[in-house]
């Protein structure tokens, strides 16, 4: 992989991390708040359905995670297993796509 591409991956991972940070805080906060006194499907859906804000938040979350996680996993695999090269890069991309697909479905259902 060229030097430039490697730097772009680094930028993408750090930028997505930067985006994820506030989203995770929001997510953690609502989770801690939401489970007070147990929770049901209705309650969750009542909060999220029809809300553009929640849709945007979780949409962005999924997107950022889909960029962030595969890059991280790729470097873990490269360092800790003998797997490297094109096939690994492709697998990482597929992993990202998987997150997007699952994420879009989940967010779609919630909103």
């Amino acid at each position, binding site marked *: 992989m060229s030097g430039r591409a490697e*730097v*772009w*991956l680094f930028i993408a991972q750090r930028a997505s991390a930067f985006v994820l940070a506030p989203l995770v805080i929001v997510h953690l906060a609502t989770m801690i708040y939401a489970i007070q006194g147990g929770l049901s499907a209705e309650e969750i859906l009542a909060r999220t359905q029809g809300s553009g804000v929640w849709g945007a938040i979780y949409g962005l979350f999924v997107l950022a995670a889909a960029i962030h996680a595969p890059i991280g996993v790729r470097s873990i695999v490269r360092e800790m297993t003998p797997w490297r090269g094109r096939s690994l890069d492709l697998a990482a991309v597929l992993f990202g796509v998987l997150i997007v697909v699952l994420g879009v479905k989940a967010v779609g259902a919630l909103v």
Partner: protein
Amino acid sequence: MTTETVSEQEFEVEIWRGRDSGEFVTYRVPQRESQTILDVVSHVQRRLDPTLSYRFACRVGMCGSCAMTVNGVPRWTCRTHVDLVAKDGHIRIEPLRNLPVIRDLAVDMVPFFDKWERATGQFVPSDAGNRQTFARVPPESRERQEADAGIECIGCAVCYSACDVVAWNADYLGPAALNRVWTLVNDTRDGGKPEHLAAVAGDAGCHQCHSHQACMTYCPKDINPTAAIAGLKRATVRSVLRGEL
């Protein structure tokens, strides 16, 4: 004169003998007031087993030839007092990690130097023929301070040996080489910035560092390669965003 009748105190050290395969051999070494790990190793070679191989030169922490692994941790042995490491009365000495072993405690440092070279760890003159003047560089300037922070590296490879990323990624340039390049990037006299940044950007370069900070933890010269590498990460990002890399 003190009348000493008790025989001198001794302690045990385990020393690696062999190459990639080999074994630890235990020796009993007399305890002395001023005694470095290098002295222990020398005692074994000079008095107990003349076939022991190791390396040193300056004896005072200037040449970076004498680094070994002592109780699991890489150290400059000529400046490591026995008391510092023998807290539980036990010492185990091995060659440096992450470099091929030549014999016993001596490693082949060529990969380390080669990476220094590959990282473009050498000055690129911008004023080559000048035999009259010196560039003006105020000592308080930020660049000079950054350069000074890392420039006294003695190339001992302690950091290189301590870094797990070096162990995981055989191509990784390693903390010392990257630290040197950072001093050059901050050297206002250096004319090779684009080459330096290009050389440290690849998949062997600064972005492979996970900030373990083992390098700065163990560097005997209190150099901070982690900060230098972070500086290179920023510099390369900036130059990619500007479309220069």
